[in-house]
Each structure stands twice: as structure tokens, then as C-alpha cells.
């Protein structure tokens, strides 16, 4: 039932004031032939008690899994205070801070967020967020085309070690503007881009995208890649995992002069897995590119009395002012997720985030160690990694994943569809939330399943 406070008497008084006989009269400008006959396919309304029951049943259906999938969405511990504060009505039910004086809470928080992101990435400026990591990469590509005035090619070098979904999203969003995303292969033994394989004369290109860690969890040689790109007149777009930055070189310090644009998925900073969203995309850049940045940006200024305060700034870049000439059509950001991320970063601090990152890394090292001892499972790459790794299975993955699912285990993300050379391979992740006991029970389950599949005469080589 709808959330409408009117009594019958009030409704009558209001209609009298309007001079209308009935509510129906208020729709008299809509041509009769357009009036619809109702909403037959929408079910009748429920009471709160009924919907609570339905949603509990459905949530319960999907509950209590042990998850070893990562691939862009990571299960981290979220301190209780994060969503306790984030869902306060004053944050939850406010809107874009157009009336700055009545939105100082949101504005100051966003300014603090921007500060935290510049410190994490070692970049000059940050915007107030974009939709998610994938669309942030698309926006970074568009931004690079605007920012690199020396390049005329609209050609972006996009390594295959970048998340495949990010590459697809970037393509879907930028290809209408005649921007070409040119694939760069990775070294199939090491699972990272091989510097030696890069051409001496790459031709005119706008930017090189560098993922760190890359989709396989491996660490790219970011310094050499950055210098190579800059040496050929390209900008560097870094795609990074924010948690990893607590222990890895921040993109602002890559190579001789650092990355130019940094983007990525903010989800690891306090957003639950939640089926893939809402998350938030982050974007940072050099000071000199700030006017090319898409999305909301908050600035610190003063009021009439000289008191410090915060407001939306550089709005001349945005659609509500520039219309068809705007840097992007983006209007909202992901304010509530940024609220959660800001509180998350405050609660963890630099040392806490470092522990989250290093424990994730250590747990993954243990996972690699355990799984590598199992027959029929091999780690595919031998490179430094953050908190994910690729494993090849001798037995058919379909059967293994199905058997794991029956035991409530999400075994990882399969790679064959996006990487034919990694057919029957699984990308597996362990964050700080996967204890040694979890990893042991995962390894034990794999061992049992392999044993059973082999004894039931399952074909050893999967179908290609």
C-alpha cells in the first residue's frame, strides 16, 4: 500500500481549494485515448509483514555460501559502524548537494573522500565518484582523448590483462565516438604484459591502460610500462584496486613521472558484494587535467563571513551547464557508497588497510600453496601477485563447480569464455575474510570431488 498520509476529509478540502470535483478531474489534460486500463501484471499490494516474509525466503535461498570468487568484487570485512552511519536518514535520504548551505555534511564528507583518494593513489585531485570501476575506465578513456592534445589518433592501447568486463563496457560506451581500443596481448607464461614485446615504434596512440594488479591477480611491471608509454607520447591510465594501494606503489609514483589518470572499482572500500552493485568508480588525475575530469567535484571555499565551507565546483564541465558540450552525460555519482567508503577508510586508517591488504595477500599465498599440492590442479602463472591466482584443472570445470556449489562453495570465476588459451582455468581469490580453515576445507572439497570424478570415469580432458 502506498505511503500517502491524506485523510478523506483533507482530500476533499484540497479538491475544493483546486475547484475540482474529483481527483480524476486533475487528469483531464491527458487525451482519453491514451488512458490506460490499469496494471494487470503488477500484483496486488502487500503488507510489510508479507513482504518481509517473501524477501527473507528469497534471501535465504542464496545464503550461507563460502566464496572464493573475486574478479572485480571482493568480500572484505566491513566494520559495523560503516553502514550504521551511512544509512542514517540524513545521508541516505538527502540528494545532490545543489543547496550547499543545506548540504555541508555531504559536501565535507565528499571533500574528505577526495583527499583520501589522492593520498591513496598519490595523485593531485580526485572527483566525487563515478558509477563503477568499469564505467570509470570508459570515462577515463574519453578523458584521455580530451586531455592528450598532441595525439590525433583516438587510439587506446588496452592490454588483455585488463578485466574483460571493463574492456567490454569501455567499448560499449566509447565506440560510438570513433575511439579504438586496440588489444595488447600478455605473456602467456607469466600472465603479465611483457615489456620486451612492446613495439619500438607504436605509432600515434592516445593512452596506454595499465592494470595493477591485473585481472589474473598478477603484478605488472608498472614502472617500465609507464615510462614506455610516456616515451611514446601516450598518457597512462592506471586501473587499480584501492585496497592493494595500502601495500603497492601508488600510481602517482609509477616510473619517472607517474600515471596521468587513475581509476578503479571502489567496492573493496566498504561496499558489500551485493550481486555486483551498487559500487562506485573512483577517478583521480594530475592537477593539469582537472578541467577534463567527468563527474561531480567538491571544492573548499569560504562563506560571506569568511568561514570555511564546501560546494560543488568546476560545474562548467557538467551536463546541466554545458549540455551537449559537457565532459560526460553523468549526473549523479554514487554518493551513498562514497559515504560508506569514507567512513571505512577512517575506521581502518593506513595501518588497518595495510593489514587487510597484507592478510589478503598472505591468504592467497596459502591458497596457492594448498591447491598446488592437489593432483590435477596447477597454478598457471609464476609472477608476483596480490590476492588472486589462476589455476588450471585437468578434470572438467563444469563438474567441479557444480559439485562445489552443492556444498555451498563458489569456487571462483572461469576464464575460458574470455581467454580461449585459459580454457578449463579458474580465477580464485582469498581476502582477509578467508581463514586458513576456509581454505583447508576448500582444498579438501576439491580433493574429494576430484577423487570421485576420477573414480566415476569422468573424461580427463574437457570438451574444447
Amino acid at each position, binding site marked *: 500500500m502506498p505511503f500517502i498520509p491524506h485523510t478523506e476529509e483533507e482530500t476533499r478540502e484540497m479538491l475544493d481549494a483546486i475547484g475540482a470535483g474529483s481527483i480524476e478531474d486533475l487528469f483531464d489534460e491527458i487525451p482519453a485515448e491514451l488512458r490506460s486500463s490499469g496494471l494487470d501484471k503488477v500484483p496486488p499490494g502487500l503488507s510489510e509483514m508479507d513482504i518481509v516474509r517473501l524477501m527473507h525466503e528469497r*534471501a535465504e535461498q542464496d545464503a550461507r555460501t563460502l566464496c572464493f570468487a573475486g574478479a572485480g568484487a571482493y568480500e572484505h570485512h566491513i566494520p559495523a559502524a560503516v553502514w550504521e552511519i551511512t544509512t542514517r536518514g540524513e545521508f541516505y*535520504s538527502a540528494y545532490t548537494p545543489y543547496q550547499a548551505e543545506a548540504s555541508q555534511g555531504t559536501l565535507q564528507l565528499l571533500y574528505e573522500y577526495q583527499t583520501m583518494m589522492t593520498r591513496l593513489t598519490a595523485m593531485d585531485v580526485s572527483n566525487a565518484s563515478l558509477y563503477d570501476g568499469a564505467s570509470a575506465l570508459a570515462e577515463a578513456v574519453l578523458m584521455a582523448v580530451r586531455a592528450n592534445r598532441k595525439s590525433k589518433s583516438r587510439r587506446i592501447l588496452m592490454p588483455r590483462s585488463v578485466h574483460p568486463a571493463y574492456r567490454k*563496457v569501455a567499448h560499449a560506451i566509447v565506440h560510438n565516438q570513433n575511439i579504438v581500443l586496440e588489444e595488447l596481448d600478455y605473456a602467456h607464461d607469466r600472465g603479465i604484459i611483457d615489456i620486451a614485446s612492446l613495439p619500438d615504434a607504436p605509432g600515434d596512440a592516445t593512452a596506454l591502460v595499465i592494470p595493477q594488479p591485473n585481472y589474473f591477480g598478477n603484478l605488472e611491471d608498472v614502472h617500465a610500462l609507464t615510462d614506455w608509454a610516456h616515451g611514446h607520447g601516450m598518457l597512462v591510465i592506471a586501473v587499480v584496486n584501492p585496497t592493494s594501494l595500502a601495500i*603497492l606503489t601508488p600510481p602517482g609514483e609509477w616510473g619517472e613521472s607517474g600515471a596521468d589518470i587513475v581509476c578503479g572499482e571502489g567496492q573493496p572500500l566498504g561496499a558489500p558484494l551485493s550481486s555486483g552493485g551498487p559500487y562506485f568508480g573512483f577517478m583521480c588525475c594530475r592537477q593539469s587535467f582537472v578541467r577534463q575530469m567527468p563527474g561531480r567535484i567538491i571544492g573548499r571555499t569560504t562563506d*560571506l563571513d569568511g568561514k570555511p565551507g564546501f560546494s560543488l565546483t568546476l560545474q562548467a564541465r557538467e551536463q546541466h551547464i554545458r549540455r551537449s558540450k559537457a565532459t560526460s552525460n553523468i549526473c549523479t555519482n554514487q554518493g551513498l557508497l562514497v*559515504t560508506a567508503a569514507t567512513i571505512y577508510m577512517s575506521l581502518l586508517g593506513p595501518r*588497518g588497510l595495510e*593489514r587487510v591488504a597484507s592478510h589478503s595477500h598472505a591468504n592467497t599465498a596459502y591458497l596457492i600453496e594448498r591447491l598446488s599440492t592437489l593432483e590435477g590442479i596447477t597454478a598457471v602463472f609464476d609472477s608476483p601477485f596480490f590476492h588472486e591466482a589462476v589455476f588450471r584443472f585437468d578434470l572438467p570445470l563444469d563438474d567441479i563447480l557444480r559439485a562445489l556449489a552443492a556444498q555451498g562453495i*563458489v569456487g571462483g570465476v572461469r576464464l575460458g569464455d574470455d581467454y580461449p588459451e585459459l580454457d578449463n582455468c579458474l580465477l580464485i581469490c582469498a581476502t582477509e575474510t578467508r581463514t586458513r580453515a576456509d581454505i583447508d576445507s576448500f582444498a579438501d572439497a576439491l580433493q574429494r570431488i576430484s577423487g570421485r570424478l576420477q573414480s566415476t570415469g569422468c573424461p580427463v580432458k574437457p570438451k574444447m
Partner: protein
Amino acid sequence: MLIFEHSREGRVNAPQAPLTDQPCNDIPEALRRKHRAGLPEVSEMQAVRHYTRLSQMNFSIDTHFYPLGSCTMKYNPRSCNTLAMLPGFLNRHPDSPANMSQGFLACMHDLQEILKDVTGMQAVSLAPMAGAQGEFAGVAMIRTYHDARNDDARTEILVPDAAHGTNPATATMCNFKVREIPTDQNGDVDIEALKQAVGPHTAGIMLTNPSTLGVFERRIHEIAGIVHEAGGLLYYDGANLNAILGKVKPGDMGFDVIHMNLHKTFSTPHGGGGPGAGPVGVSQRLEPYLPVPLVTESGGEYHLLTQKSRPDSIGQLSAFMGNAGVLLRAYVYARLLGRDGMQRVAEYATLNANYLMVQLHKAGFDLAYPGRRATHEFIVTLNRQARELGVNTMDFAKRMLDYGVHAPTTYFPLLVPECLLIEPTETEDKTVLDNFVEVMKQIQQEAETDPEKVKGAPYSLPVRRLDDVKAARELDLAWEG
């Protein structure tokens, strides 16, 4: 005071991270961070107190009347949030296999079906993450449709001059030229100008109905005929369905594609500026191009359809399947309302807007379109006050904050000078609306007797008017202390 000013080097908030250090010596030195990131080092209580205090500096629906036109700031029922945050939903990994995801997928499938009925369209994709991304999906589908027919002459998108800024910006992102269509004095699209503008170069038109002027476009059938006849398609910016839920369906008006802002009509939280959700609905001919993933059902089981099985799709717009948690909130809201509740939403949103419009008119304020019914919103123009008293719309808006009312949308749409776009929504009661009229009258009186007082407002908020010029000239976007 910033959170950084509460920070002291070495303060740790131990319980919330793993309890021990863990060396990472196997990672090469050159790839490791040399100095700790300058994040704040505060206790849990300091953080909780700081952010609670910040929250208290906001106006919000939960604390204030927030009649922000075109944004539909209606009450966000608590159950929608509580139920979307059940552990089974929060902990579901986006790559979980379908057989471990039937509860979630059932909700998504039901929501797709509900939105199909609400819009009168053939098929719906929940993928876009916000209204602007829904617009992008819609216009990209129009482009793909023409491309698939090898019709490369269609280089232009028509946009009424009253349109939201995202419309022209979206058309540009899809590499279309934008041509503006003027509005006539009653707030309708200028049909003669439209006839002049269409031709073999017309890819489509982006329209909102009710328009951003707060009126219903009465000649929509004629407009649809003109554009379709020229070979163009009709895009419906359904940012706002609040006034027409169950009353009119965009599909019946002749639209080919529509996006919906679930954070408006379906009451998902605005969150200080997002997250939103912008599902798209399409007619038969655009169905193959819908963004993926889609949720499908066969034999009582639900699955996600990806580009593999939808090869003509414009593609994927997010890493996974859009703002799933927002979609869950909208689903709970839709089920609470039900079919009759949705109609009542449209009825009472319209009643509140018309009542407030009439009362403000009676109180002496000028309406932009006095002869028209309000839809879910309407426009007051303060042009006379600006001219005669030197007190403009911004001054009224800022003074309103002192009276505990969030200002309506100001200076939009651009073609009405000194305008306030006012949308009360169905969840406010008559007392709140009457109070708003009193506040407006009070400010009017102040403007007549003491204009400087209004021009100096606000006085009672955490800050007074901010220096936006300074903010843009002396950029301070991150704290350096």
C-alpha cells in the same frame, strides 16, 4: 573540523582490521609502497562522532520538506532498505552460479515484468546504473537500430529546449548532432518547428512527458506520428513516472524506448547524489539491442542472458549487472504498493502538486503556465519580484532554508526566467503544503519590506552563502594539512 584534524600518527583502531601484521616480502621491493598513505588515524568513536555530526548538517527527506522539482524526493520506506540488506542478498557474489542465486534472480525477473507493465513496453533491461546511463543505453539502441538498417544519414537527435541537460550530453556521447526544438507559450512542443526540423537526417527525438515544465504534452500522438513518419524513433526520458503510474503508459503514447529513474518513482534513496538505477524498456523493434545482462525464466528456473546469447545487444554497461541493491529496494517498494497503490501514487502526487500550485497562485505568486493543470510538479516564476524588488529566485531559495524547507529546483528549466520547479510528492500531508505557502508569503513580505535580509540569507545554517567564484578560481579539492 576535518576528520584529518582528529588524526594522530600512530593511533590505531585495532579491532576492525586483522590483529597481526603480515609481511609481504615476496612482492618485489620496487612494486611496494614506500610510505604509508595519509589516511586518518582515529578511534572508532571519533569517526562515529565526526560522521554523525556531519550527517546532522544535511537537509534530507527524513528531516525536512524537500520539494525539489524533477527529483521526486518522496519518503523512502525503511523496509525497502532493511530487506535489500539481508545477508543472503549482501553476500551474494555477482559471479555466483545461477543455481545458487534463484532468490535474487526471482526478484529481478519479477521487477522486469512489473516495469514492463508500468511502461507498456515489450521488454525491459535493468542494467543501466543511473538515469543518464539509461539515456545512453536508449540513444545507443537508436543508433544501433539505424546502423543495422545501413541508414547512415540519420545524424541528428532532436531535443526540446526544456529538456534536462543529460539529454543533449547523451546524444553527443552517441555521436549525434543535437538540434533543439522550441516550446510554445503553453509549454507544449512547437509542432510547426518540429515539422520543419524532421527529415531523413532525424535519428530520433528525446522527450519527457509530463515535460520538465510540469505539464502533460497533449499532442504527443501527433508528435509521435511526425517523427515516426520521418523514420525517426521516439525516446522517452521517463525520469519521472510519478504522475502517470497506471494512468498512461509510454508504450501507448508511441514511444520506442524509455528509461526510468527508480530513485524517483520507485523511491530508492537519493543517497546524497546516488546510487540510482535507470532501467530501459523498448518496443519490439529495439528488443534485440537491449543492454545485457537480462534475466530470463524457463521451467521455473532463472538465468542471466549475456552477450553470448544476445549478440546484437549494445553490450554491457557495468562490470556486473548494474546497481542490483538499488533494484532490490525498488522491487520491495513496487510489491508494497501493488497495482492499486501505484495508481494512488499518481493520484496523490498530482493532487498535492495541483493544490500547492493553486494555493501559491491565490497567495499572489505567478505561475509559468497558469492555464494548465500541474502534473507531479509545476513552475512558479519570480520574475516580477526580481524586477520590482531586486530579490531573485536564488534569494528566495536561500531564505527558505532558514524556515526549515529545502528549496525547490531553481533556474531549471532554463527557458523560464527566475523559476522555481516545485514537486511536493504524494507522501507529504496538507499541513506541510500549507506551511510551504506560509513560508513563501513570509519571504514575499520580507522581500517587500527588507529585501537585504532576504538577499543575505541563509543565517541559521552551518555556513552562510558560499563564494563559488573563489571555489572555482582558487581550487582547493583536497586537504593539504
